[in-house]
């Protein structure tokens, strides 16, 4: 259950990338040197300094050109694969329902990046830490909206209470269907138990570069099912070891003392 969510209305996105620049500005992320790849999508990859980006996709079907764009980044899933994959418990859900990385606990194993169904976790090779969108948690707890939605000039990104945003998204989808787009749909309501980024897409999610059916990888589920209890076992074993060591030492001390007494 998310308290506050962000609606990403891809049908209203004009690809100005104000969200991308605002994210870098607020989070003080350095620019990345890139080369022209033939698309406006730049930089092409998520990284420790690119937490969000506008994804551009072009399609030419029967002479009809479709140019799709949407802001993408961490979805802040309720059933977060990264949280399950993290071996040190560095990834957690905040009280606001966002997914955050504890920078002190992160050991840089990169399991979260491998498990993420949206492939949005970046890795900082200098500090050896995973980095991703924080949903501007510092702004949220201070009553501000995220930097990306504050900057959006077209109203493609709308931040608000969950119920209000869902009804807004449904109204927008109905409107698009009324206008003749029968492919319009909501994305992120049921996927991975609901995400804090709710999309209104004008076409199939695959066309936007989003997974059609995002799932927590089975391996991650098994890993977390084994590793969770294992951590408690380790604690119990260490505790038992200390106890055994102390009692054994005491017995040894006693035996030594007795031996000394006998000598005397």
């Amino acid at each position, binding site marked *: 259950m998310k308290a506050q969510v962000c609606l990403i209305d891809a049908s209203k996105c004009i690809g*100005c*990338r*104000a969200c*991308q*620049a*605002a994210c*870098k*500005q*607020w989070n*003080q992320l*350095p620019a990345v040197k890139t080369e022209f790849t033939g698309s406006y999508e730049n930089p092409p990859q998520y990284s420790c300094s690119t937490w969000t980006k506008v994804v551009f996709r072009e399609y030419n079907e029967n002479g009809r050109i479709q140019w799709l764009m949407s802001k993408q980044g961490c979805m802040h899933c309720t059933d977060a694969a990264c949280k399950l994959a993290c071996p*040190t*418990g560095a990834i*957690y859900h*905040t009280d606001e329902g966002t997914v*955050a*990385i*504890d*920078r*002190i*606990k992160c050991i840089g194993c990169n399991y979260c990046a491998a498990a993420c169904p949206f492939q949005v976790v970046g890795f900082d090779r200098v500090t050896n830490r995973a980095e991703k969108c*924080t949903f501007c*948690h*510092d*702004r949220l*707890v*201070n009553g*501000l909206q995220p*930097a990306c939605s*504050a*900057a*959006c*000039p077209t109203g493609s990104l709308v931040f608000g209470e969950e119920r209000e945003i869902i009804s807004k998204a449904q109204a927008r989808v109905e409107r698009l269907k009324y206008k003749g787009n029968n492919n319009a749909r909501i994305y992120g309501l049921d996927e991975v138990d609901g995400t804090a980024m709710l999309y209104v897409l004008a076409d199939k999610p695959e066309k936007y570069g989003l997974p059609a059916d995002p799932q927590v990888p089975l391996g991650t589920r098994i890993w977390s099912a084994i590793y969770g209890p294992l*951590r*408690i076992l*380790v*604690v119990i074993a*260490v*505790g038992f*070891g*200390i106890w055994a*060591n*102390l009692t054994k*030492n005491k017995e040894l001390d006693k035996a030594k003392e007795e031996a000394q007494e006998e000598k005397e």
Partner: protein
Amino acid sequence: MELTRRSFLKLAGVTAAAASLTSVGYRKAQAAPGERLRIRYTQEFHTICTFCGVGCGIICNVRDGVIVNAEGDPDHPVNEGTLCSKGSSISNVSYVFDEKGKPVPNPNRLTNVLYRAPGSDRYEVKDWDWALETIAKRIKDTRDRTLEEKAIVDGREVTVNRTNSIGWLGSAFCTGEENYLFHKMARAMGVINIDHCARL
């Protein structure tokens, strides 16, 4: 404290146990750095975006003379709190961050008056007094030299008092009142080629 082999092992065991306890989650997750707002205790300044002719309102947060954040002004009627990608990065016009993340003045920013004389191939650094005086002098010269007092319109002579040799450009970064004054000043001098960058 005397560190014997045994006490060292004990200490190591306790430390390992404590460390493993924290990873199980007995310690509340560390709050992410930056829970305090980055822009707290900063001074707010209102300004206008200097890029295009739209003239979006921006709030700059300034600490110790350095712009630490700039974002759209929600009360500004033009942009209502939003900004484009260029406007979002406007704080870099004055300050850029070096490799260590320390703000340094943008080396590409113009801080002096640069003057290129007619026919010259280089810019010279001049001061503002010289520049304003020269501009005023040249405007006066050109206007006096090229002023048309009368012109033939539709076959009859009318008083026009105009000069065609000067072009006048307003600015989207000024308020409507300021642009009104610019316009009046240009009209008073007889300039009729008046334009504005916000021709959207």
